[in-house]
């Protein structure tokens, strides 16, 4: 019997109880003489765990790249840093097919309605990473044309510091998002 990423406390059942219950199921199976089949073929887990396991290892990013950060994201996607090691290499250019938006670069007031609309076009569940100083806070562009942080118009899950951030920081943010995803309830 194997447990796939047990996440204690999420569905209200403590981990010990969950293990006890699975032992009970196993016991029952033994009574009916089917233990070999069951232990070989069955895996007990929670819906949350298995769905999140799938989600976190196949994040489909949508790059809302507007400026310098987008060039640095190109480096993340390219051969040296290789974002596919983290299961997030399938970069989608349609918001309908993506679940992780990376806002890389300065967002101007002219761009703002478009960013908001694209965010709304993404299907749930979706996560947003604000990459770099401009996306996080407007950066050093405190002026008449720059939105002072994309969190003024869309919800942001993670901020990455830097102007632009190093590729490792972007990979770190994706790892951080994956860790958070493990603990997230599937039903909202």
């Amino acid at each position: 019997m194997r447990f796939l990423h047990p996440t204690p406390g999420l569905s209200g059942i403590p981990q010990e109880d969950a293990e006890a219950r699975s032992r009970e199921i196993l016991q029952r199976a033994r009574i009916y003489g089917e233990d070999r089949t069951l232990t070989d073929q069955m895996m007990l887990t929670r819906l949350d765990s298995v769905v999140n396991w799938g989600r976190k290892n196949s994040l489909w990013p949508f790059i809302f790249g507007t400026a310098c950060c987008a060039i640095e994201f190109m480096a993340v996607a390219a051969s040296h840093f290789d974002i596919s090691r983290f299961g997030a290499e399938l970069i989608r250019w349609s918001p309908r097919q993506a679940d992780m938006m990376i806002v890389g670069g300065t967002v101007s007031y002219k761009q703002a309605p478009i960013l908001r609309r694209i965010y709304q076009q993404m299907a749930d569940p979706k996560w947003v990473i604000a990459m770099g100083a401009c996306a996080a806070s407007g950066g050093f562009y405190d002026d008449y044309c720059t939105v002072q942080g994309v969190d003024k118009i869309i919800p942001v899950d993670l901020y990455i510091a830097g102007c632009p951030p190093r590729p490792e920081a972007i990979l770190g943010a994706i790892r951080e998002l994956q860790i958070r995803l493990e603990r997230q309830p599937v039903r909202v």
Partner: protein
Amino acid sequence: MEEKTAAGITGKTWPDVSLEPSTKEFGERIRLDPPVCGLPAFRVQPELLYNAIRFLKENKAYRFNQLTDVTCVDHLQNGQAPARFEIIYNFHSLPTSARLILKSWIAEDDATVDSIHSLYKNANWLEREIFDQYGLRFKGHPNMKRILNHKEFVGHPLRKDYPISKGQWLSEADDLLDELEIRHRLDPKDDDGDRERMTLNLGPSHPAAHGTLRNMVELSGETILYCIPEIGYLHRGFEKNAETHCYNMVIPYTDRLNYCSAIMNNVGYVKAVERLLNIEVPERCRYIRVIMCELSRIMDHLVANGANLVDLGALTNYWYLFSLREKIYNVLEEQTGARLTNSYTRVGGVWADVNENFEPSVRQILKDVPRHVNDSLKLVARNRIFLDRTVGVGAISAEDAVSFGYTGPCLRAAGVDWDLRKVQPYYHYDEFDFDIPVGERGDTYDRIMVRFEEMFQSCRIIAQALDRMPDGPVNIADRRYILPPKEEVYSSIEGMVSHFNLVMRGVRPPAGDVYDATEAANGELGFYIVSDGSQNPYKCHVRPPCFHIYSSFPTLAEGGMIADAIAILGSLNIIAGELDR
């Protein structure tokens, strides 16, 4: 005297031009102005502008066939100025290499100037920009509409009385149908009747739109009839920010103009400021700047060609080219402390001398470049799909290219053998042995191949510069411009005072104008700086090569397929940070 020192800075002075006949023809209404750091300048009355410019363009003696730039200065804070606005035209003659500046005072109450869009094709967008930023109107302009700021913007942000941090939200993006209407009216293309036309929005968030470029196209089948580009999605207020920062504090902002080759912008900017200050950087600094610039040029072309080939579906090239870029990143990071936005130069020198790893690591890069680039070239040079999609696609004639203000690889691809490094050499470029690749047809194929070849030529320049780079200081000794070393600051009162002075008061150039240009990866990167003697530039205008090139995009794309437009767009290498500033 001033002419002589200006010559020393650039190696060669801007070619002189005499306007004797024109002054005879126009009488008192056109007169000589003090030169702009070596560039001849004339003062013209506003009603005479159109005729004077036409004269300059068409007269056989001058042939100023390229409009380098048009900009405007708001003299609200200058009590001496006879009028509020000053419009500044910057011309360039490719046949004679001469340059000329025309200035004119425009009063606020009748802020109208004759449009010159019929003389120079790039004037259309330049005039729209001045209207957008300053509120000057151009008589006879076909489409006097905002270009960088959005349609609901109220006021003109580069006017001195517009507060820098006053942002204005936009409720909904422009549908651009009004501009399409204007195009329908001006040149109605034959309606083929049986097929239905369709308008299609490309961008600004589109895989091949490189982030922030938007085009509204009207299609007949898959053929583009009209193409309306909209820019300004990455307008970040470079010029307004420059007006509120000290001269050295502007350098990080220049990084983010063409962020694919940040150091070239740093060098272009400080070179203009140094020209204004009339200082010359030491020999070693010049060679370091040359090497850094050429490395950046290679990096820029790697991104341009890599991204362009991805757009054409050739993803493998991107892996090959970007792994080379990663190697150059490492060298730049070791020397400057940053991968992408280096901010390496300072007024009067560079941030720090290069370390002992510099030469061996750059020599290794010189070995790597041909290997990676040839790997990529082998994939495309005889590739049938690549040739079908690029040869003859988006061709532009040399004459049109000049009229649109093309510079850099795109101009050379159109068959014009023109490179600032050869024509008006700076930093010993005249002493290096290198060739300028020139195309024949001015199509997408030529633009890509010119960039590939330029990478090899940059390697030649770097190798020679490494051989000749002397020892010695990298910064000038003048304590008014360069921070003293730390031990001097902590141990002597003079050191501390000059440190304090420079940090608190900054570099203070004398009052005056300067225009200086360098050959950046995309073409002529020029800075027009107006100083009023204070620590901030009164006006800092950048002449971005992309802006002029992109204004020709409708001409290139119309009549072709949508897929061709994608190939053309990539080959122009439009960098939004530089386009929108």
